[in-house]
């Protein structure tokens, strides 16, 4: 076993590289290609102002819900700083996807025609319905539906989870819309055509009524015919109990506030006409629910106002071409740089190319693992980063080999120079690589989007370089310089011949033989 001393790290790193590559191939892990390589839709949204962190997370949750309703595979929604990056690979209906995520949902005001008990949806297949279930909604129309043998609404029982399709929201006509509390269906309302949209609203706020200590929500409409005018027209009909907005059990007609196909509130209209800024929605609001409603009125469904910063539709063919070009360019670069290293450093050059292969195997495994399990995508920027890192890796070899040459040239034996040169050049390599790592870490931390991918791969390959420099390059060069065959012909190592070993002091004159060129 003694003969392996000092070479354990070599055996281990080669084993790790081979095993991880085998595992990657066997488990079918593959790098996840970024959108620029496989085609798809990518949208970057930026919140206006400085929103709270929690509201951005909430916005991401809502956006994810919407995209899931679109039925695409593996949407990638990530948060980068305050920005939200949405990537949907290979989506078919690209425009719809961008529309869904890129815009805040439309807020609609629709007259309520009837309110149904949620059991018509949830218990659609059973004909016997416990009438007691309808006590929470005091609407008499609910009881009529209990006799209905089937579900007239067309809503699925888990509608609060899945959302509605575009047809179901039926802007221009009559439709059934759910009212949800989280994912629980609370009520089903039959509503008429859209009377006005959120565009008529100026702002909204939640206020605490000092006298009743109850929370109310005050929407403020824009002035003029397109604002308060529209609202008052609808309000007048509802107050009068017009056929398009029939009176409810509790009094005049109701106007439902609809967001993302869900009724978020359906207040009764208690006056025929309102001032633009004198409207109050009262009810059993808690502070939280009042504020939520005010936010929804203000921004649409998302708790923050989002601005579309960048949207990209990448065609699958262009992406594939870019991938091929990147791979082939990388391969050509690799071959050229290998030839250069071998021409200069002979056997040591070959060893440095093997180092690239070990790093490559490890890199491939890490990228595949992260791609399959953490959704880390390999983008074109990442591929560029990897190609650039070929240079980073070989730089370490050059620094070491040149130091080795210099030491031998200055009169050391190749053997003793191998260790000595490694120590000082590894110190240089660490300094230089740490500087690169600092740069990569700062890039990752301070920037967004494509820059991050680049920084990640640069950092990853720099770390791998540090690892392989120590675990592979050190022992393998040692092996090479201990080989008797190579020592006899140092030119094969690209190292000058050792100075002859004089018994006394060496003279300044050195033989000039043995140089590679």
């Amino acid at each position, binding site marked *: 076993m003694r003969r392996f001393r000092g070479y354990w790290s070599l055996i281990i790193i080669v084993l790790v590289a081979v095993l991880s590559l085998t595992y990657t191939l066997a488990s079918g892990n593959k790098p996840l290609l970024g959108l620029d390589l496989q085609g798809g839709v990518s949208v970057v949204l930026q919140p206006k102002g400085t929103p709270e962190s929690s509201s951005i997370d909430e916005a991401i949750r809502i956006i994810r819900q919407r995209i899931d309703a679109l039925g695409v595979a593996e949407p990638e929604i990530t948060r980068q700083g305050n920005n939200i990056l949405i990537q949907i690979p290979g989506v078919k209906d690209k425009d719809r996807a961008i529309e869904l995520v890129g815009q805040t949902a439309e807020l609609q005001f629709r007259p309520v025609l009837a309110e149904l008990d949620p059991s018509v949806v949830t218990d659609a297949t059973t004909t016997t319905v416990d009438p007691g279930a309808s006590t929470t909604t005091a609407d008499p129309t609910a009881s009529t539906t209990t006799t209905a043998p089937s579900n007239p609404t067309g809503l699925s029982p888990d509608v609060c989870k899945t959302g509605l399709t575009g047809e179901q929201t039926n802007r221009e006509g009559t439709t059934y819309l759910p009212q949800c509390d989280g994912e629980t269906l609370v009520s089903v309302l039959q509503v008429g055509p859209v009377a006005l949209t959120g565009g008529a609203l100026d702002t909204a706020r939640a206020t605490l009524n000092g006298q009743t200590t109850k929370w109310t929500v005050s929407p403020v409409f824009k002035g003029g015919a397109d604002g308060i005018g529209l609202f008052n027209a609808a309000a007048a009909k509802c107050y009068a109990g017009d056929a398009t907005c029939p009176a409810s059990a509790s009094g005049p007609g109701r106007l439902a506030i609809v967001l993302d196909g869900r009724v978020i509130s359906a207040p009764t209209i208690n006056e025929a006409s309102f001032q633009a800024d004198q409207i109050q929605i009262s009810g059993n609001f808690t502070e939280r629910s009042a504020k939520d409603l005010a936010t929804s009125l203000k921004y649409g469904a998302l708790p923050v106002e989002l601005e579309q910063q960048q949207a990209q539709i990448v065609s699958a063919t262009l992406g594939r071409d870019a991938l091929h070009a990147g791979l082939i*360019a990388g391969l050509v670069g690799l071959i050229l740089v290998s030839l250069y290293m071998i021409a200069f450093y002979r056997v040591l050059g070959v060893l440095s190319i093997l180092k690239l292969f070990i790093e490559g195997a490890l890199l491939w495994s890490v990228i595949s693992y992260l791609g399959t399990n953490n959704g880390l995508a390999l983008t074109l920027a990442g591929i560029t980063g990897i190609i650039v890192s070929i240079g980073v890796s070989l730089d370490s070899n050059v620094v070491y080999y040149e130091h080795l040459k210099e030491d031998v040239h200055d009169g050391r034996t190749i053997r003793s120079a191998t260790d000595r040169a490694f120590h000082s050049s590894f110190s240089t390599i660490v300094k230089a690589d740490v500087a690169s790592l600092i740069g990569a870490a700062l*890039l990752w931390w301070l920037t967004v989007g494509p820059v991050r991918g680049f920084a990640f791969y640069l950092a990853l390959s720099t770390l791998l370089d540090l690892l392989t420099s120590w675990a592979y390059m050190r022992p393998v060069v040692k092996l090479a310089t201990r080989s008797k065959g190579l020592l006899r012909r140092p030119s094969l190592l690209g190292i000058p011949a050792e100075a002859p070993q004089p018994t006394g002091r060496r003279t300044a004159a050195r033989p000039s033989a043995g140089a590679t060129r």
Partner: protein
Amino acid sequence: MSRLGRLNRGETNIDFLKVWKRTLIFSGVLVIISLLSLFTRGLNLGIDFEGGVSWEVSAPGVSVSEARSALESVGEGSAKIQIVGSDIVRVQGPEATPEHEAEVRQKLADLAGTDVGNVSVSTVGASWGSDITKSAIRALVFFFIAILIYLSIRLEWRMAVAAIVAVFHDVLISVGVYSVFQFEVTPGTVIAFLTILGYSIYDTIVVDDKIKENERLVGQSGRMTYGQMTSLSMNQVLLRSLNTSIVSIIPVIALLVVGAGIMGAVTLEEFSIALLVGLVVGAYSSIGVAAPVLVWLKEREPKNRTIRERLAAQGVDVLHNAPRPTGQRLLEVEDQSHGRRDPGALDPDDDAPVTDDDQPGAPSTTTTQAPRPAAPAPSGAIPPRPRKKGRKR
């Protein structure tokens, strides 16, 4: 001995003291040109910085004028139309409604005779590019500070300052090249520039490490000034610097020529031009800018100024390279210095010789050196295998 042979052995004797005067003037001129061009011509900012829509479709054989006449019907006749890569038609226009965007997409698909799904569209808000730039500049500032601190700890503050000056020079000239040649600046370009920073530093650190190693030649022997020592160090690491740069540049050239040129990948072109420019400038600046700035800073130190004045008084030529110490003398000097060296004065892991008991041929080089004070590498855990006695190599 051929010039290449000397280069290969680190035996060139280029008088960098003279060369630096030229490189500094050269750099100065480049910086002035860059600044002038930046202020007069500005940068050719891509769509990502101005906001707008960009369509791309692979349409072999379609010319710009054909594309223009086809797009006139949808009101994009005046749009910026280019053929990029080998056969990609790129149309860029101001921000548009989604409907208009879809119209143009359909038109382009018809033109290229392909499905509408094969047309790429990129819509960019006006603030996207400036956001990227802003975060890049912030990253740059933090990078400068972090590197300044890191190099001050690992090497010394003067080297850190010299390295930062060189990197700043690199960034300025790279941006200048983009301005002079009016290459389009895209977020990809910004990314590439940021990468260059790490690179430029890499080369500079390799040089600085060698200078640190040779520093004792100034103090102990008093035979040369700091400038002369640095010039000597440059000659010794010249091949190292060249080769690190060459192996980095070869893959990038492959990206540019094969990836972008032959295969026509537009994004690769954006990256690789910036990388190439930055790499070349970075390789040059570590030799031509970082080193002379360091010498200038160091020669202001009282210790080094005294040495310089003493040598000048002795009639030694301090303006040109000192006579080159031979390898033999280098080793001797090294041993003396290590013998006397104040352990705290220099970077401990800089270049202490390994205690190497298998050096029968060179008894003079193995002094009674204590084990390395702080091994930089875990390699210290694996001691060199003791040689069997009496075995000849």
